[in-house]
């Protein structure tokens, strides 16, 4: 007596029972079919499997109809969470990289250039040339600010002269000329002021005598 067919063999017969190649399958599964025809237990199981397949199909179509997109924490495993994290990181990294590249491109378009050795040397030479002038201007401003002998308010005088110096368009070009301009506002005596070398002379004219 041949053993009863297992579910897989019954399922194979069930799936094969259709189409033009059914006869071909029937030949292949002839032994199993013969057993199925003569065994009431296998025949019953065959019917159950057919019904189960129908139930599976119904359950799946019903599930598809009721499907809603909803993230559920209980179904998100560690791997999915990790993948979520990686994905988020990738999105933000890409956004940051894109933003950085766009900002760099904008800077280049506006005329900015990266610092090179040559431009550094050029900048150094310019600043060296300008530093004495800046020093003179600063000292002149200080002198004028201190000059209150002619009755002008100190603060007002200081501000006025400082503004004159800073607003002089030629100050960077002519250097000492700007000092003269500033001094002319503060008083005639200051024309002879040599900052840094003769601090006493640079005191207010009233003090000199």
């Amino acid at each position, binding site marked *: 007596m041949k053993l009863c067919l297992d579910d897989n063999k019954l399922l194979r017969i069930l799936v094969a029972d259709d189409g033009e*190649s059914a006869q071909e399958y029937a030949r292949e599964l002839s032994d199993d079919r013969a057993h199925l025809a003569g065994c009431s237990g296998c025949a019953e199981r065959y019917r159950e499997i057919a019904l*189960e397949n129908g139930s599976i199909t119904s*359950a799946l179509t019903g599930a598809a109809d*009721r499907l*809603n*997109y909803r993230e559920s924490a209980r179904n998100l*495993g560690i791997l999915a969470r990790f993948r979520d994290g990686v994905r988020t990181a990738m999105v933000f990294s890409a956004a940051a990289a894109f933003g950085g590249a766009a900002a760099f491109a904008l800077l280049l378009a506006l005329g900015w250039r990266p610092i090179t050795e040559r431009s550094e040397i050029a900048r150094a030479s310019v600043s060296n040339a300008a530093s004495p002038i800046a020093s003179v201007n600063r000292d002149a401003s200080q002198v004028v600010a201190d000059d209150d002998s002619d009755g002008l308010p100190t603060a007002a005088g200081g501000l006025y002269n400082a503004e004159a110096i800073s607003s002089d368009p030629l100050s960077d070009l002519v250097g000492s000329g700007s000092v003269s301009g500033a001094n002319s506002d503060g008083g005639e005596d200051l024309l002879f002021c040599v900052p840094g070398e003769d601090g006493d002379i640079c005191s207010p004219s009233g003090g000199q005598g």
Partner: protein
Amino acid sequence: MRKPAPDARISADALYRAHQQRIVRLCRMLLGNPEDADEVSQEVFVKMLNQREQGLEPADWRAWLTRVAINACHDRHRSGWWKWWKRDGRELLDTDLTARDTVHEAISHEQTDALWIAFRKLTPRQQEVFILRQVEGWSTRETGVALELSEQAVKLQLFRALRRLRESLRSHQ
């Protein structure tokens, strides 16, 4: 574009009403989430309208729509980024808001979830064969023609799909 005749428009509406639910369900089963399914099913019906505009009426709209829907889902599946993006636990079954009906009394709530997850893990080809053979009721030959598979291959794919689904059912009994 040529304006369709009024009767053709009515007919298109009738076609849409007759097949929309079926096509959306098919797309949901193949894609796994409703948003994509809605999108793809709309594409399918746009193609149907274009087909009508061109006067290319297929002999069987039901089969034509099914084939187009499967191809559209297949194309979307082949998109690499889409596959990567969806390959996590997001495509879920929300069963909390739905009442049980008599059809599913034989299969429990948990078993339905397990079946759905198992179905999502089938290969696209197995899913397509299962849908055409089991859900749409196509014959093996029709399925083979539509998917460009031999009858043997259709049967093998269906057997594998059913076996895996039954295994998932067994493991949750």
